[in-house]
C-alpha cells in the first residue's frame, strides 16, 4: 500500500513544510539560514531570546511556537531527528542580544547531544547562553532520576512562561529560574492506541495489537511498559491522572495547569471527552483546575493517542501563562 500522505520527495519534507509555515504566517515568522524559523520582527536586543531545537514531523511543535511572547528561533531537524550543533549555534548567534539566550531542550538523546555540543561551542565563542532540559515524562524514568525522563508536551508551558518573562525584560538568570520552576512542577504521560507512518520510509513506527493501547509511549513510538487492553475514555483519563498526581504529589487546594495533547489522529472530540473526566476527578479531589489547554501541540504524524500533562502553578507562573503571545499556533489575547 502506498503511503497516503501529501508530500513531494521525502528528502524535501522539512524545508517545504518550513517554507509553508513562513508563507502562511509572514507577519509572525520567517525562514532563514538552514531550516531555522525565526520571528518575523525580532524582539529588542535588550531582552533575553529563547531558542529551541528538535526533530520535525511533530507539527505544530516546535517551530509553530515562534513569535511574540514565546520563542525567538527554532532549529528544525530532519523527521524525528535532532538538528546538528552547528545549526543550533547559528540560531543562537542570530537572536543573541545583550541579555543572552535561553536554550530550551527536550530530553531526547539526540537533542541533548546536539545541545551539549552547541553549549561547548557557544562557551568557546564567549556567548551568553543558558540551557534548560525538559524531562517530565513519568513513564521513562523513576522520580529520583529525572535525567532519564523524556521531554514531551511540557515544552509548551516552559516556552510560554519563559517567553513571557523574557518579554517583560527579566534577566537570563531570572528567565532560567522561571523555566526551571515550571519544569520541575510538571509531569506528562502519553498513551498510544495506533501507530503512525514514518513519512520518509513509509513504515509504521511501532506495532500495537488491535485491542491494545500503550501507556508510556514515547514521542517517536519508543515503547513504554504499560501495554493493556483498550479502556474507555473515562478509565484512561483516571489511570493516567492518578499516576501523574501521585508523581507530582499534588495536594488538596493546589492549582494545576492541565494540557491534553492529541498525537495526530485522535480527534478533538476525544480530547475533550478525556479532559472532561480529568476535570471531574480533580474537582472530586479538591484540586483546582486553574488553567487548561486542549488540542494538538506536538504530534507524531497520524498516530492515535494523547499526552496528558499536569503542572503546579503559582501566582507568578499563572500570570506568565496568561500573558499575551502571538505565534502561529498559540495566540493569547
Amino acid at each position, binding site marked *: 500500500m502506498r503511503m497516503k500522505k501529501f508530500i513531494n520527495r521525502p528528502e524535501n519534507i522539512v524545508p517545504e513544510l518550513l517554507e509553508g509555515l513562513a508563507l502562511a504566517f509572514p507577519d509572525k515568522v520567517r525562514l532563514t539560514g538552514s531550516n531555522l524559523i525565526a520571528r518575523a520582527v525580532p524582539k529588542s536586543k535588550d531582552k533575553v531570546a529563547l531558542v529551541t531545537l528538535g526533530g520535525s514531523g511533530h507539527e505544530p511543535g516546535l517551530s509553530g511556537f515562534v513569535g511574540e511572547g514565546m520563542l525567538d528561533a527554532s532549529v528544525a531537524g530532519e523527521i524525528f531527528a535532532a538538528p546538528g550543533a552547528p545549526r543550533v549555534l547559528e540560531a543562537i548567534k542570530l537572536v543573541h542580544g545583550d541579555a543572552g539566550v535561553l536554550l530550551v531542550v527536550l530530553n531526547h*538523546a539526540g537533542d541533548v547531544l546536539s545541545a551539549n555540543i552547541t553549549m561547548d561551542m557557544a562557551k568557546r565563542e564567549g556567548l551568553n547562553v543558558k540551557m534548560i532540559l525538559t524531562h517530565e515524562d513519568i513513564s521513562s524514568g523513576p522520580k529520583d532520576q529525572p535525567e*532519564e525522563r523524556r521531554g514531551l508536551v511540557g515544552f509548551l508551558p516552559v516556552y510560554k512562561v519563559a517567553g513571557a518573562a523574557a518579554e517583560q525584560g527579566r534577566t537570563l538568570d531570572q528567565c532560567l529560574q522561571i523555566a526551571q520552576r515550571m519544569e520541575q512542577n510538571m509531569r506528562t504521560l502519553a498513551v498510544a492506541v495506533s501507530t503512525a507512518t514514518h513519512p*520518509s520510509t513509509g513504515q509504521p513506527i511501532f506495532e500495537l495489537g488491535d485491542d491494545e493501547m500503550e501507556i508510556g509511549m514515547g514521542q517517536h513510538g519508543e515503547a*513504554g511498559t504499560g501495554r493493556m487492553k483498550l479502556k474507555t475514555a473515562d478509565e484512561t483519563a483516571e489511570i493516567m491522572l492518578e499516576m501523574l498526581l501521585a508523581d507530582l504529589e499534588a495536594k488538596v487546594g493546589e492549582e494545576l495547569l492541565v494540557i491534553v495533547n492529541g498525537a495526530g489522529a485522535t480527534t478533538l472530540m476525544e480530547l475533550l471527552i478525556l479532559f472532561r473526566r480529568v476535570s471531574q476527578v480533580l474537582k472530586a479531589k479538591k484540586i483546582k483546575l486553574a488553567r487548561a489547554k486542549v488540542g494538538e501541540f506536538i504530534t507524531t504524524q497520524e498516530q492515535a493517542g494523547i499526552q496528558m500533562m499536569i503542572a503546579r502553578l503559582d501566582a507568578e507562573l499563572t500570570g506568565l501563562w496568561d500573558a499575551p503571545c502571538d505565534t502561529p499556533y498559540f495566540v493569547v489575547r
Partner: protein
Amino acid sequence: MTGTIGQHELSQMFRSAAARIRERHGELSVLDSVSGDGDHGTTMLRIVDQLDIAQSSSEPKTILHDAGWKILNVDGGASSSLLGTFFLGMTEAPECNSPLDCPALAATFEAGLAAVSKQTRARPGDKTMMDALVPAIESLRAAVHAGKSVVEAMQDAAGAARAGAESTSGLTARFGRAKFLGEKTRGHQDPGAASIALLFEGFSMALAESKETQ
C-alpha cells in the same frame, strides 16, 4: 615499512569506510528498528557522504576538521553528533598536524575518543557504539607498544571493533532510544556499534590496499 597516513591515505580510508557503510546500511536500519527508530542506516549514509565531501582539503587536520563539522551538521540524532565529535575531537591532538605514524595515529584517535567520552556517559557494556569504539582505539595503542605498522594497527582495531560490536548482542541497552526497550534489545547487536566496526573495517581495508600498491 611502518608507513604513515597522509592526506592521500586518509582520503582513501574515508572513501573505503563510506563504501563499507553503503554496502551494509540496510542491516544497520534493521538493527535500529529492533532497538530504536529504524533510521540508523539512512543516517549513516548521510554521515559518510560527508566523509566524501571532506576529502578535497589539503592536510589531515583540515580534512578531519571538515569531516567532523560536516557530520555534526547532519540531522542524524545521536550518531551524527557522536561521530562528528569523534572526527572533530581528533584535531585536538597536536600529532594530527603532520602525516601520522603509528603513535600519532593512536594519539589522534584517542583525542577523538576523549571528545566523544565528554559528550556521553556511555561506556563499554552499555550497548552503544562505545562497545566498538573503545576497544578499537585501545588496540591502536597496544599496536604502538608492540611496534606494529599503521596497517597492522588498523587491522587490529578493525578486529577489535568487530568483536566489540558482536559482544553487544549479549548486552542490555542503557543509553539512547534503546534504553526504553531494556531487555527486548538482547540478542541483537547495537546498530551504532555495528557502524563503528564497518568504519574501522573500511579504514583497515584502505590501508591494506594502499600498502599493496606501494
